[in-house]
């Protein structure tokens, strides 16, 4: 059978096995239509438990005040903003996969984009909690938005990076949500049309907004996805750029560097892909989706991890070089004394960061390790630990010893409620992810069907056999010519 669109035989198939359209629907909708397993319940209840602990920790903070946390002068941001930047970084992979890879016409995104986008949305929600509750008097949080008010009106400072952040994150969340949901509509309609149970038909009927699959609607849907991708691409780069401005526009040694925007964006993609790997390696196993999220997908994402990890490593070394080259005493102090000196109070965190982010991902230069699921999962956790320490290093080691030695703060350890808040966001994140994997298709059905006939294993075998010969002839010729 000729394919609708030609794809080279050199590329490995993105959908393995002998699938047709109906089989794809069956495979992906199965977890939604069957009862969740015991393992699902264990995981879900664990996540809810963590969430409850988090809610209690936040309750303590609201009722008794910010003093419940061990932040102090000079460490005003501590764990809280570390966690904020960490989560927002994780929230970058989804839109990167769905937007940038859509523009680059990367077929492999279809296997992972839906789950990654969902992860993005949950991660951004987690991230938003930290600056919110850090305000202390959280009931006045709406003051950050500009609206005509009876206080003057007094407006927020539009020239401040912190306000840019409010706009960047709320825009990013909204656009990611729209992108994710418009993509979901046709898949929800598929579930609606298959549903036998009345409540399921009703629920997915409401959620799918009356989608019919009309050609005109698909045409608009494709146009919308493409333009949203075009808008999200600069958006996703802008968000972490602006987060980095929170630091870079300040005058704190260790923060005011021009390298921050690209360095933060690379770090965000790095940690985001690591989180996608952690989730999908488990999801594909538990939901039996190995034929859709193939080793090929994992391999490709590991390549991105080693690339972005190396960019981040390059940024670390550049910072050190500039700290020395600038001959700025405060800059050198921040980097060479507070970070690189292993025996300074927080020097150890710099070395955790370096080894997790720069050294360990280098194992992914080996194809065998890139394609090993266990190694991938282990590494994805290591990378996220490393990326958490990167933010900790940037925030805490830059401010715990400032210009005046008399105000140097003591060794910083978080309180149980600070840790509880962080664990609570994990609880929230995994509660959402468990619910998502139960009630929504974790793989974009319509998009997988779209690439099936040019990237499915069964169809690739039937595709233009003459090309196979020409590849061998080409390889032979090439080997002789070089």
């Amino acid at each position, binding site marked *: 059978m*000729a394919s*609708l*669109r030609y794809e080279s035989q050199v590329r490995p198939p993105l959908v393995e096995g002998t699938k*047709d*359209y*109906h089989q794809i*629907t069956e495979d992906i909708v199965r977890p939604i239509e069957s009862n969740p397993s015991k393992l699902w319940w264990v995981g879900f209840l664990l996540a809810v438990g963590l969430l409850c602990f988090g809610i209690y920790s936040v309750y303590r903070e609201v009722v008794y005040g910010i003093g419940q946390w061990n932040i102090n002068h000079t460490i005003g941001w501590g764990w809280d903003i570390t966690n904020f930047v960490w989560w927002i970084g994780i929230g970058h992979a989804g839109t990167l996969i769905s937007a940038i890879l859509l523009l680059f016409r990367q077929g492999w995104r279809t296997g992972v984009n839906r789950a990654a986008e969902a992860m993005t949305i949950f991660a951004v929600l987690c991230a938003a909690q930290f600056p919110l509750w850090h305000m202390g008097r959280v009931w006045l949080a709406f003051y950050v938005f*500009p609206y005509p008010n009876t206080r003057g*009106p*007094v*407006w927020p*400072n*539009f*020239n401040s990076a912190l*306000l*840019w952040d409010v*706009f*960047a994150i709320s*825009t990013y969340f*909204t*656009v990611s949500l*729209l*992108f994710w949901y*418009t993509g979901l*509509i*046709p898949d929800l*309609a*598929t579930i609606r*049309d*298959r549903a036998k149970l009345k409540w399921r038909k*009703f629920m997915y*009927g*409401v959620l799918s*907004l*009356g*989608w*019919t*699959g*009309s*050609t*005109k*609607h*698909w*045409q608009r849907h494709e*146009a*919308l996805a493409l*333009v*949203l991708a075009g*808008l*999200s691409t*600069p958006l996703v780069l*802008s968000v972490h750029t*602006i987060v980095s*401005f929170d630091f870079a526009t300040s005058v704190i040694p260790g923060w005011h560097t021009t390298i921050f925007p690209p360095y933060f964006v690379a770090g965000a993609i790095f940690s985001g892909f690591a989180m996608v790997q952690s989730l999908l390696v488990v999801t594909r196993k538990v939901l039996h989706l190995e034929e859709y999220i193939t080793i090929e997908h994992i391999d490709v994402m590991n390549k991105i991890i080693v690339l972005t990890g190396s960019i981040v490593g390059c940024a670390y070394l550049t910072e050190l070089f500039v700290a020395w080259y600038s001959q700025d005493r405060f800059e050198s102090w921040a980097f060479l004394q507070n970070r690189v000196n292993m025996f300074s109070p927080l020097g150890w965190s710099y070395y955790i960061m370096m080894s997790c982010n720069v050294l360990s991902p280098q194992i992914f230069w080996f194809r065998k390790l890139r394609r090993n699921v266990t190694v991938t999962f282990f590494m994805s956790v290591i990378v996220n630990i490393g990326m958490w320490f990167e933010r900790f290093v940037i925030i805490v080691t830059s401010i715990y010893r400032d210009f005046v030695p008399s105000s140097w703060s003591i060794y910083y350890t978080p309180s149980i409620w600070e840790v509880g808040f962080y664990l609570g966001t994990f609880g929230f994140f995994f509660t959402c992810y468990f619910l998502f994997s139960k009630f929504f298709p974790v793989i974009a*059905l*319509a*998009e997988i*069907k*779209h690439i099936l*006939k040019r990237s499915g294993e069964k169809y690739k075998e039937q595709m233009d056999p003459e090309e196979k010969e020409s590849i061998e002839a080409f390889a032979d010729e090439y080997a002789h010519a070089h």
Partner: protein
Amino acid sequence: MAVKKFVVGCFDQEQVLFSAVKKVRSSGYKIHDVYTPMAIHGLDKAMGLRETSIHTAGFFYGLAGTATALCGIGWIFTSDWPLNLGGKPHFALPAWIPIVFELTVLFSAIGMTLTFCYLCQLAPFVRKHHFHLRSSDDMFVMVIECAAKTNQEDVSAFLQQCGAKHISVQQAETGWWLGTYDKHRAPFKEEGHSLF
């Protein structure tokens, strides 16, 4: 809203569908719509649908966002409440670029999505006539509208000859746009007018 008769043919292969669309159109039948489980590139052209202008709308929504941000911040910082930030100029355009950019994207994305939902009649609780339940699974469903003079048997036979696997004749109420609204099956009771 008139109740009309439709001949519905289901295809299981895109290639067959494409040639069927061409045959049906060249024979002078009017295709009401083709319902597919996924986007099929080129089908809109084969059916003679015009290109969507949703991206043009997105551009103008984006412009509206840019204008809102620039005018809003400009007015606030130069006239309504000029803050003295270290003696720097009140009209500080470079510092506003991030927010101007974000609002451009935000307006464009929200505007386009709402336009998309409006044009495709997508909203919770809107119930439409679904010609075939498997059109969201693995079937490509071509729906041909019958005029007063159309002989349904002829159309059915023609579709059979084009390669349709399953053919049926259905009655459905046409909506104000390409979609249809089935008020008898609506979960809430509203006599006389549709949701829109």
